[in-house]
């Protein structure tokens, strides 16, 4: 399909919207209401362009203009500018943007004047300032002044939609992105316009927004109307250090940008990754970062003469470890690490275990079973025509997977990709899309997903696979029929199935998958459990798993909190003074995953890069450097001095080349995986990360009023009167 934009002819696939045609041609159109992953509505009217199409004669040929060979199809221009986000480009269409059309330039400047009419222009105190679409577009396309000589609309500037999202009703420009987001993505009809005309405002039902995925509206709001309450007033956009990295709170591995200011993590926003999270992240991933900046360990701690943990230097800590491990065989020191550690850290620990000869090596949490059925990707999930979820509480295990499932239920339409990125307006997406709940079956305990499922089977998840092989109820027969009748079925397995799965699990799963042609996602226990399984990080014969750490003669425990110490000398490497760290002899400060460089593998087998955000955490060190210190204390050769050394280990052992991993990540299947008996595990992402709810500003003031807070330096309160109350 040939389309001419501002005089340049380009070739585009059929169905492309006019706005994408302009961007494809390297042009620019301002827009507020359109969003890559939401339906086009044409409400803001900023993306006006002039357009015209050739017309056909009754015989199918184009109406021509000019004589002989110079004749060209005559372009019939629409009499008025059209919204390009809701207009489909057609064969031979001509489009003029503001670059070549004075009419469009004036229309857009006039529309910008209208958009800014009731906008408070409080950019100096607005958190969005510097990263605001309205600000940028007003600068690029506006008049620079307003002729509106009246009072602007006044409304609530601090209207809490929930504990996490604050609405400034004055700043809202009514693009309706947030309303459409809730209706189309998590499928919750909770926001809408109230009132009409110039009084229109956004509001929610009583009780506020449902948590889960509510924070995404703060990302897509083109102005500073919807703000993340956790990050509100913490910094200006140009002060933040923006670090693109991967969230490792759960095995989905969403792409995020970590914004830090003055060495403190202040905000996390979603980053687009078409293959993983599109443009969305969950609330736990967005708001649940407070732990990274509170009560962190910043120096090593060692026991003083009184047996108290006191701050020390790394040298003193290494000396303390040397003393503690003296007289022990290096093989007696058990090595344990958390399963959200990176592949590089795992490789370093595996190499150290080889050097010390210890048989007690373990990572947690993990599941005993390994799944060999064909792997489904997240895109497979989003485009599946049948999905069966067994024994998973996705809110606690892998929240964004839930959004990809809901995407499949609304038709699995993934916006196409152009040279300028994901399509800005995919005309196949419609407001209030019809959902197909009959494509989703859930088996197991009740969870949030049940509200969207057409088939709901309340059953013991462990036995579900066996029962699906020989369905004994109508409900299960319906689920099997759903899988059998589908062309692209996907089975998703959660913790209730995977944790403590019996011996027949693998056979049943393989049987079901091969019989129905289904692809499978088994949600790993932690962010990098899947990647670490490729390394030999399970107890060797006679070795102790992490849940028997107390039997080990000595132990090094990294970022795990089993709540026990080893029988002998215990070193704990962690970000916070956990229960285990309080029992340790030496505590070494660790960095969080926001501060690491490395690689993790998510639930679909995609390798995703981590980059260190500029967060101040004192003398904290990642595991690779900490293992060098441990090796020095144990008197063995350090396996890897740094990240590159660890990556060299991965290249040697697994043939894994991580040197040019794309930002979007890359799918990778390890040939061999290690598994072994595992402790039961129940994922608690939400419960763990969302317990600390931010206070609303009203609560903050009330808290201040009712506290014993006094003006610093004020005289002490006068002594109570003698003979007072008693």
């Amino acid at each position, binding site marked *: 399909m040939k389309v001419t934009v501002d005089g340049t002819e380009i070739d585009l696939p059929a169905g492309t919207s006019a706005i994408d045609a302009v961007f494809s041609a390297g042009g620019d159109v301002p827009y507020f209401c359109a969003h890559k992953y939401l339906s086009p509505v044409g*409400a803001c009217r900023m993306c006006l362009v002039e357009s015209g199409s050739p017309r056909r004669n009754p015989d199918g040929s184009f109406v021509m203009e000019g004589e002989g060979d110079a004749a060209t199809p005559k372009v019939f221009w629409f009499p008025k500018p059209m919204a390009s986000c809701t207009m489909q480009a057609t064969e031979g269409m001509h489009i003029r943007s503001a670059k070549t059309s004075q009419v469009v330039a*004036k*229309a857009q400047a006039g*529309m910008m004047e209208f958009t800014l009419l009731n906008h408070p222009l409080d950019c100096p105190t607005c958190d969005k300032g510097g990263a605001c679409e309205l600000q940028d577009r007003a600068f690029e396309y506006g008049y620079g002044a307003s002729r509106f000589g009246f009072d602007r609309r006044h409304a609530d500037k601090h209207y809490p939609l929930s504990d996490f999202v604050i609405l400034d009703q004055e700043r809202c420009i009514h693009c309706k992105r947030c309303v459409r987001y809730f209706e189309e993505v998590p499928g919750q009809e909770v926001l809408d316009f109230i009132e009409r005309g110039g009084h229109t405002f956004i509001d929610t039902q009583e009780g506020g927004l449902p948590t889960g995925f509510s924070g995404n509206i703060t990302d897509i709001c083109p102005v500073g109307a919807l703000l993340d309450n956790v990050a509100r007033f913490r910094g200006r956009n140009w002060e933040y250090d923006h670090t693109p990295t991967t969230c490792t709170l759960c095995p989905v591995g969403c792409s995020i940008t970590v914004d830090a200011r003055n060495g403190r993590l202040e905000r996390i926003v979603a980053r687009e990754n078409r293959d993983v999270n599109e443009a969305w992240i969950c609330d736990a991933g967005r708001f649940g970062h407070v732990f990274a900046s509170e009560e962190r360990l910043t120096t090593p701690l060692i026991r003083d003469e009184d047996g108290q943990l006191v701050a020390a230097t790394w040298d003193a800590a290494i000396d303390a470890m040397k003393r503690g491990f003296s007289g022990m065989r290096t093989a007696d020191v058990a090595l344990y690490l958390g399963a959200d550690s990176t592949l590089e850290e795992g490789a370093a620990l595996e190499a150290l275990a080889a050097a010390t000869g210890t048989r007690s090596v373990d990572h947690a949490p993990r599941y005993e079973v390994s799944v060999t059925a064909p792997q489904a990707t997240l895109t497979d999930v989003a485009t599946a025509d049948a999905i069966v979820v067994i024994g998973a509480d996705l809110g606690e295990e892998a929240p964004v997977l839930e959004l990809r499932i809901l995407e499949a239920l609304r038709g699995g339409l993934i916006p196409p990709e152009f040279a300028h990125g994901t399509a800005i307006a995919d005309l196949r997406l419609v407001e209030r899309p019809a959902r197909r709940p009959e494509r989703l079956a859930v088996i197991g305990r009740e969870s949030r997903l049940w509200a969207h499922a057409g088939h709901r089977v309340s059953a013991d998840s462990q036995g579900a696979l066996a029962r699906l092989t020989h369905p004994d109820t109508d409900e299960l027969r319906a689920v099997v029929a759903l899988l059998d009748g589908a062309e692209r079925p996907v089975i998703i397995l959660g913790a209730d199935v995977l944790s403590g799965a019996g011996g027949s699990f693998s056979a049943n799963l393989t049987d079901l998958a091969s019989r129905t042609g289904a692809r499978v996602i088994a949600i790993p226990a932690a962010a990098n459990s899947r990647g670490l399984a490729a390394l030999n990080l399970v107890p060797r014969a006679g070795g102790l798993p992490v849940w028997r750490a107390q039997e080990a003669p000595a132990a090094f425990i990294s970022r795990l909190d089993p709540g026990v110490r080893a029988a002998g000398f215990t070193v704990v490497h962690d970000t916070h003074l956990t229960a285990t760290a309080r029992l340790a002899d030496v505590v070494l400060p660790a960095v969080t995953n926001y501060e690491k460089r490395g690689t993790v593998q998510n639930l679909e087998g995609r390798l995703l890069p981590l980059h260190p955000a500029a967060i101040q955490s004192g003398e904290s060190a990642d595991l690779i450097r900490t293992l060098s210190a441990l090796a020095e204390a144990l008197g063995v050769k350090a396996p890897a001095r740094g990240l590159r050394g660890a990556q060299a280990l991965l290249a040697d052992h697994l043939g894994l080349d991580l040197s040019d991993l794309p930002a979007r990540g890359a799918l990778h299947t390890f040939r061999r995986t290690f598994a072994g008996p595992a402790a039961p595990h129940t994922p608690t992402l939400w419960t763990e990360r969302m317990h600390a709810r931010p206070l609303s500003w009203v609560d903050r003031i009330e808290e201040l009023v009712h506290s014993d807070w006094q003006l610093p330096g004020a005289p002490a309160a006068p002594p109570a009167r003698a003979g007072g109350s008693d």
Partner: protein
Amino acid sequence: MTATAPTPPKPITSAKDPRFAPTLYAHVGQAESWTLAYYRQNGGYEPVRRAFAVGPDAVIDEVKKSGLRGRGGAGFATGLKWSFMPLKDGKPHYVICNADESEPGSFKDRYLLSEDPHQLIEGMIIAAYAMRASVGYIYIRGEYVHAAERIWAAIHEARTAGLLGQNILGSGFDFQLYVHRGAGAYICGEETALMNSLEGLRANPRLKPPFPAAAGLYGLPTTINNVETFCAATQILRYGADWHAGMGTEKSRGMKLFQVSGPVARPGVYELPLGTTFRELIYDWAGGPLEEMKAIIPGGSSCPMLPWTDATLDTPMDYESVAAAGSMLGTGGVTLIPQADCIVNATWNLVRFYGHESCGKCTPCREGISSWMTRMYQKLATGRGQPGDVQLILDMSDNIGGRSFCALADACLGPVLSSIKLFREEYDALATTQQPLYPARRRWRDR
């Protein structure tokens, strides 16, 4: 009996023509005209029998042949619109009657609804039969309480008599009809906003395409027509397409309900053939103006004003002639504006209405009309005008016109732009001297 071919009769373009007799409004005002018994005595439910006898496709052909055009204001050919409905897609189809008559100056449908509800019901059965629809809705304006009660009662009567429901009159055709009362929003007269409102959603207009005939109510093929259109369909099936096509002008055929409001001797609704002149409506039927006039709004408040001149008065009231005169026939709601009224004040009244009714979906209407234009008029009309204000209104209008999502913003610009064009001196007086050329008068006239 002559041997030569009969010359085609001259079309009827005046209600004074002896061949013309009112049909739509023939029974309005008669005692008990809203009952089934009265309706049947006067030939009611015979047209639907005829429709069942000729079959659905023949009904659509008959309506096409009659030249009937939508009476809600846009004047789209009704038969063509009906033929857009997919015939054999196996999906349920809907027929909706747009009875959300909210345009200032329009009040024809309320009497059809309250005085002759069976005429509408019959028209909807005929339309549903032609378009293979099984369910119909009458979306009635919330303020029309009395009319809604009459419609409800009429539907109940029709249902009891087997005229609605399963196997109507033994034809094998099933049709159910429901009434939905609006909650008071002008935008609900816009067909896609009406469907949203009917579905229980916020009444914002929807994106077109898809057009309602492809994906309308609940995403299924739907056709929406005005009350008068359905009633005219009943009459077409009663008297035949040729009878209907014998009235009016070449492209605007049939009869139309015209409404006259403002200071005339007999304001009200008049059924006249299309092509009747404004002069005949105002002087011969409405009894003539009571004072000197300066402008008329020909078809409901969104239509641009026309000057009170002989040329205007002699303009035939059909879609083409009124358009050629620079306005629109719209709903046929003719409003007269007296010479002694301040045009800025009168226009402010209309602008305030549109500003109040703006749904808030798109920027030019929400901010341009609702927030800004209303206040510009308030400023001018209350004596705070400044030089340049009129030019600003014109420039704003240029930024609004044709840029909005639906036609509401353009509807507001109709009176604004036409009044500035015709009566610029009144605007300039307020902008420069802050004094109106025509000071405000008592609101109520002594008669």
